[in-house]
């Protein structure tokens, strides 16, 4: 029993695939539990197993890529059971391929755990294309010749068929097990690359089923460079829960106290669990023959399954990057535009392409085409007919070029939009914000750092667009109410107190939510950004709580408007402890997030990060934020009399000098060398990272005393 108790929430093993040797080793999870799971576990594994952390391109064979689950994976924790984290050195970031992260949903992490594994790590480069076939403890590395060149859909179908035929009978597959003969009717969960990954395009994603994609970071290119087509897991085990009754109790508390009641719709609900299951799309529902679909164990259900033969599970940006162009092509017919958009999304999924760079990249190309700069025989030659932009035909041609590196896709998809703009002599488009790639060569997510401060600060001190909406929900609730002429459900002062109370002791004052221009660079706002950075690093990136659900900082269903976050009924740590048997406090988790951040920063330091690299694109400093003619961006601020109000925070820009001062104060607060941003002896001691000292010192990257 004692041995089993140590594995509550964990399966106890990590699978290390050594591609250059075409074999594998089993690593005990025990050492890595201190990092939680997901990102933290991945960063620690990277540190231990990547022998050269100075590499600057994820395509380097020395790169190590980790796909990690968490104790929540495969359990009925609300909106957490199916998320999965990917880490490693990425491709396509600026100015180098940073150690970075991505994340996807579905049922891959849960099936990985049911097969007995907490994470899978791949190192080296296979001598020829391979795929990895894991059935419980049995691990085989197969030649992938028949799969290479196939779409993600075809590859997954072939693997599922292969695994089925290898078993006893399809539908009842005999599984290798040390507990005697076992059978399963489940399908394997497959994570794979498409042609974009095989061709090592920076825009290449890892795809699981349909539209569950790890897009940011170019991990598809990483796998392609390693000759790795796919990893498949199927298992018959279960995740041991330390206190099942506590888990069930917390689920009921979630329903009773925090989740919207589908029987009593409340259009003005404030909080993330505010609606019945519904596909999260940026387009009209294309058919009335649809149902919702969800990741493993999720109670939200944010994806759709349709009778169309395409578009299944497409959501969020996959349903928006082409929507505007499709609407123009369909002359305003929203249903037709929706069908075109879903088809374009499905093409991306099948080719294994990340849609995010296209959100701002496609309008830029449209502009160049309309200005007569891009086109057949033009200054920038292309055989792709941009006059058909918005059609399925254009989507097929353009996306094919991106995936196979043909035509302009050779530059755009392999190097990324920013390097291509520079190469084409269009650097000014990036500097002016016409090409809206805000940080690290990555596109803006929709929330501009001149208004949404925490989003910008956290992205700047990390490695990519943050994409963590915990604080951002405030924008939505306040702005939608204001646009509709409804009095905001929670007044600004109450909201500031509710939110910042959850952040104690990391923030000392409700002034942390005061996004007034004169308070942009304050220590209070910095503390809020630090809290959110570390919260996200642990509870969302390592615990793998879903971004659509967590954090729950305020909630209009609760009698005192309290959100579930940090609560003793259904807080993050309540679920964690019920599953793992630990006695972790909510703030213990955030401290772990801080430690993980500093380990990541040690890796970035070895890769060559310098303080001067932490900067926004020029337009963030040089132009006021107006998002075209966007009406307003309401946010809690304190007015001149010190009263809390909601006020428009557009029409301002960042100040270079004040940002530099901010960086100095951030580094100092985090015990980093303010001159370089590098870890110091004090940093390593404060965050229990002594194991990193020798390597940092050997590379002369240990910072001075802060």
């Amino acid at each position, binding site marked *: 029993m004692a041995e089993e108790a140590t594995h509550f929430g964990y399966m106890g093993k990590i699978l290390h695939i050594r591609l250059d040797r075409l074999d594998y080793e089993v690593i005990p999870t025990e050492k890595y539990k201190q990092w939680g799971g997901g990102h933290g576990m991945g960063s620690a594994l990277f540190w231990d197993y990547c022998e050269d952390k100075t590499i600057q391109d994820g395509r380097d064979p020395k790169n190590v890529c980790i796909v990690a689950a968490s104790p929540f994976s495969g359990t009925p924790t609300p909106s957490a059971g199916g998320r999965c984290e990917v880490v490693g050195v990425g491709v396509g970031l600026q100015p180098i391929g940073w150690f970075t992260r991505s994340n996807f949903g579905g049922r891959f992490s849960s099936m990985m755990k049911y097969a007995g594994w907490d994470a899978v790590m791949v190192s080296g480069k296979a001598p020829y294309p391979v795929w990895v076939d894991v059935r419980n403890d049995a691990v085989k590395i197969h030649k992938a010749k028949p799969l290479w060149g196939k779409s993600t859909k075809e590859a997954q179908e072939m693997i599922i068929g292969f695994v089925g035929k290898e078993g006893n009978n399809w539908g009842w597959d005999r599984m290798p097990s040390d507990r005697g003969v076992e059978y399963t009717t489940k399908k394997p969960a497959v994570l794979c690359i498409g042609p974009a990954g095989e061709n090592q395009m920076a825009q290449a994603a890892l795809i699981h089923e349909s539209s569950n994609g790890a897009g940011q970071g170019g991990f598809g290119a990483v796998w392609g460079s390693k000759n790795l087509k796919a990893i498949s897991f199927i298992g018959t085990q279960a995740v041991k829960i330390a206190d099942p009754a506590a888990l069930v109790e917390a689920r009921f508390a979630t329903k009773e106290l925090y989740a919207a009641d589908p029987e009593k719709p409340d259009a003005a609900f404030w909080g993330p669990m505010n609606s019945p299951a519904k596909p999260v799309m940026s387009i009209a529902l294309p058919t009335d023959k649809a149902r919702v679909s969800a990741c493993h164990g999720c109670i939200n259900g944010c994806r759709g399954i349709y009778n169309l033969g395409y578009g299944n599970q497409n959501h969020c*940006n996959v349903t928006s990057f082409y929507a*505007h162009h499709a609407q*123009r092509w369909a002359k*305003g017919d929203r249903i037709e535009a929706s069908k075109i958009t879903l088809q374009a999304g499905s093409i991306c999924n099948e080719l294994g392409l990340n849609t995010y760079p296209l959100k701002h990249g496609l309008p830029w190309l449209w502009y160049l085409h309309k200005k007569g700069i891009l086109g057949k025989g033009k200054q920038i030659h292309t055989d792709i007919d941009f006059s058909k932009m918005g059609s399925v035909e254009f989507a097929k041609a353009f996306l094919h070029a991106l995936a196979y590196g043909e035509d302009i896709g050779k530059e755009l998809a392999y190097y990324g939009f920013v390097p291509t703009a520079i190469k084409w002599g269009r650097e000014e488009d990036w500097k002016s914000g016409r090409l809206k790639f805000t940080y690290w060569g990555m596109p803006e997510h929709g929330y501009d750092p001149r208004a949404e401060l925490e989003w910008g600060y956290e992205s700047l001190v990390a490695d990519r667009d943050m994409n963590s909406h915990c604080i951002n929900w405030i924008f939505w609730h306040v702005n939608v109410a204001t646009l509709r*002429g409804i009095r905001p459900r929670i007044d600004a002062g109450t909201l500031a107190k509710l939110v910042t109370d959850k952040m104690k002791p990391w923030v000392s004052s409700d002034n942390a939510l005061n996004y007034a221009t004169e308070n942009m660079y304050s220590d209070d706002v910095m503390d809020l950004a630090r809290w959110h950075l570390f919260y996200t690093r642990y509870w969302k990136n390592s615990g793998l709580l879903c971004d659509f659900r967590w954090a729950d900082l305020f909630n209009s269903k609760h009698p005192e408007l309290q959100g579930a976050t940090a609560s003793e009924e259904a807080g993050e740590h309540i679920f964690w402890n019920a599953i793992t048997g630990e006695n972790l406090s909510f703030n213990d988790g955030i401290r772990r997030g801080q430690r993980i951040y500093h380990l990541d920063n040690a890796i970035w330091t070895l890769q060559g990060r310098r303080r001067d690299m932490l900067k926004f694109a020029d337009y963030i400093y040089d132009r006021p934020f107006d998002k*075209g*003619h966007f009406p307003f961006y309401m946010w809690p601020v304190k007015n001149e009399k010190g009263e809390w109000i909601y006020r428009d925070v557009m029409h301002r820009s960042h100040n270079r000098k004040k940002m530099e001062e901010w960086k100095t104060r951030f580094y100092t607060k985090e015990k980093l060398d303010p001159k370089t941003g590098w870890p110091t002896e004090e940093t390593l001691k404060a965050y229990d990272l002594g194991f990193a000292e020798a390597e940092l010192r050997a590379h002369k990257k240990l910072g001075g005393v802060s």
Partner: protein
Amino acid sequence: MTEHINPDDARRLLREVDPDDILVAARMHYPSGIHDEWIATLEELMWFLQPASDRDIPGVSIEGMASWVEDAVGDKTLAEAIRACENEHENFVDACEAAYYKTEARVSYLQKQAQRSMA
């Protein structure tokens, strides 16, 4: 908006503006995000403003939109009609819906006039 527009003027008002003069607006799809739109014609403005679900709100300032219609497109009449929507309605969403109907009527009329010239 009752004044007569000759076919040439109708075609001019319906044209695609120069890419440097497009109206950059946004749609707010709750909760999937804010998505920019690049509006180049009056017809595209009409599609953009068309009321959709209660989770889909146009993100554009009424005055910014009216200024674009007046300065980039050159339709002062429609611009003034759009400006009036802001005063006639208590909230932004209703004003946008009213602006949609004004724009729809205008586009429909202009298209009719433009086709006449081609017949």
